[in-house]
């Protein structure tokens, strides 16, 4: 799920306000946008690229590897199935509030077709200095400068803070993977960790988790086998159980999804878990030495 600079991106929903705004920024950063999709505006041009009626049509006309979804929630399932049918290698789904049963449906189709999915409800993925898909402040040099630290986050705002802290400490980012704040997502914390482990540019990983679900516990199993140092912060230690903390996935149900369970699992795997994200740079420097 690390987007390479030669990979072509199709923007589903390119004619919308968000779609057009972020397409321009992706283009300016160097992302190869090959076209967009809007069935009602097929044949026109937006952001200097053609608008297609469907992803399948875009695939027949030049082709693409990655579909970026800026699609309203109730239309997201159909758009994802279109991208999968078109043979997308990966989908970055930025949409929030997609019915979970729709998400499960297109994730099942994606799994069968071998298409990876980031999101839903992600802020996107950044390969620093090369390419980005989504909405992250990639042009802000205090947030993103190319380097060798991979960052995984369920949250955009906290991910941004950690990126800044790493730059402040003299580090740069290899790849930022925003996996999304929903309860059911395509690529999990563990999937992202495996991708960064396999990535040659990445020498260390910051894993930003939050309460809810069991993804951090699952990732800890893999973390235990990794040689690259991992530093982690888990948000939600002070959050009350049974309440959804802004993200649909950030909720403690009974004794599942708790801060303590995640911290314990990661620490048992040799991961340094911090009490405050401000110390992340120093912690990484120590972990790498």
């Amino acid at each position, binding site marked *: 799920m690390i987007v390479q600079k030669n990979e072509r991106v199709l923007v589903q929903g390119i004619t919308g306000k968000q779609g057009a705004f972020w397409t321009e920024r992706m283009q300016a950063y160097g992302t190869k946008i090959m076209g967009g999709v809007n069935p009602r505006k097929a044949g026109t041009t937006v952001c200097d690229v053609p608008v297609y009626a469907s992803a399948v049509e875009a695939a027949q006309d030049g082709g693409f590897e990655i579909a970026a979804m800026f699609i309203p929630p109730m239309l997201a399932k159909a758009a994802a199935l279109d991208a999968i049918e078109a043979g997308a290698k990966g989908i970055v789904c930025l949409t929030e509030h997609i019915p979970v*049963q729709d998400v499960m449906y297109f994730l*099942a189709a994606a799994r069968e077709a071998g298409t990876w999915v980031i999101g839903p409800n992600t802020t996107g993925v950044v390969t620093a200095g090369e390419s980005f898909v989504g909405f992250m402040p990639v042009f802000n040099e205090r947030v993103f400068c190319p380097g060798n630290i991979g960052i995984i986050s369920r949250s955009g*705002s906290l991910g941004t803070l950690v990126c800044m802290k790493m730059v402040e400490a003299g580090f740069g980012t290899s790849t930022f993977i925003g996996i999304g704040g929903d309860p059911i997502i395509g690529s999990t914390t563990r999937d992202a960790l495996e991708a960064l482990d396999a990535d040659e540019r990445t020498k260390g990983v910051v894993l930003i988790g939050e309460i809810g679900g069991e993804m951090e516990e699952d990732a800890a199993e893999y973390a235990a086998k990794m040689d690259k140092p991992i530093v982690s912060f888990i948000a939600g230690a002070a959050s009350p159980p049974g309440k959804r903390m802004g993200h649909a996935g950030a909720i403690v149900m009974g004794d599942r999804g708790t801060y303590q369970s995640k911290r314990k699992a990661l620490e048992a795997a040799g991961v340094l878990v911090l009490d405050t994200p401000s110390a992340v740079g120093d912690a990484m420097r120590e972990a790498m030495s």
Partner: protein
Amino acid sequence: MNFEEHAAKPLLAAAGIAVPESELVQTPAAAAAAAKRIGPCVVKAQVPTGKRGKAGGIKIAATPSEAEDAATQILGMDIAGNTVEQVLVEAQADIAAEYYACVLTDAASKGPLILFSTEGGMDIEEVADADPDKIVHLPIDIRKGVDLSAVESALSGLGLGARAASVAAVMEKLYSVYVGNDADLVEINPLIATGDGSIVALDCKFSLEDSGANRRAELVAQGAPEKLTELETRGRDLGLRYIELDGDVGVLANGAGLTMTTMDVIRHYGGEPSNFLEIGGEAYTLGKPALELVLSNPKVKCLLVNFCGAFARTDVMTEGIVNAWMELKPTLPVFFTIHGTNEEEAVALVRDRLGMEPYDLMDDAVKAAVAAAKEASL
């Protein structure tokens, strides 16, 4: 959104799952009248929470006068913070066997999961801990739906005997309730076999998935509204996700992750947050109502503003708060820490218009806020 039993059972009935005859009532007299019509019954508290039986919210009544007495005892009772305002008067059933049946959204398999156990009537978490082998797990591909023969074979080792086929048929119907109503959980505990071999749902828990609810307006009207405090209700009406907490450090931040983190760091340095409130995303223009809301909590002793802007511009968010602050003129101390897009402009706004200096380090702002809250409490 959770549904009380009386709202959940009609969804089962609509899918062809048998439920006992029942009537929803609000007074003891109405309970007696219902019992007269229905016969020997069970009087059940209607609250959107489990463990009603353990709390004394379910009573058996053989006669109308016993039903009246039961309703008198149950109505007004507090069960896990919910006041009982309605009871369901339901016909007693002839129970030959009790099962547990459930379809839920499973994060591990990223799909629907059918659960079934012959240990019905018990807390399923307890069964899972004590005897995990007694629970059948059957993951479903939501694109294909339930294959009846797969359900039958999954249940085959449980010794259901002559009832196996009818139980499997109920599971198929239960799945249709789940998938047809954007549920994230639909659970029957207990599902019973009667002496004459019928399969009947004696209880039902139904939970509507939040995003799916946006296309199920007719269902939302039947669910139990989330229990909110007065301030939380105000927040919801403003389009803000506000959660009231017990501490005294007011929190205003952007983004779910950063807001949770702000609360965590406050606790780490010995303080307690008074709220969760994020004004990220499209809410970033709601500075004034957000500030009013946080300050309306009488417990608040000081305010911590923590912005880290990615595509949400920190100068826009800060300007909203600074304007609101100048208009409302609160007397309590405020501490800013601002990072990210247009941070220089945001810092200048705070400096020039409020005459104060934002903290470079979030931790320093938090420490100052915690100290101020402690001082104000002396």
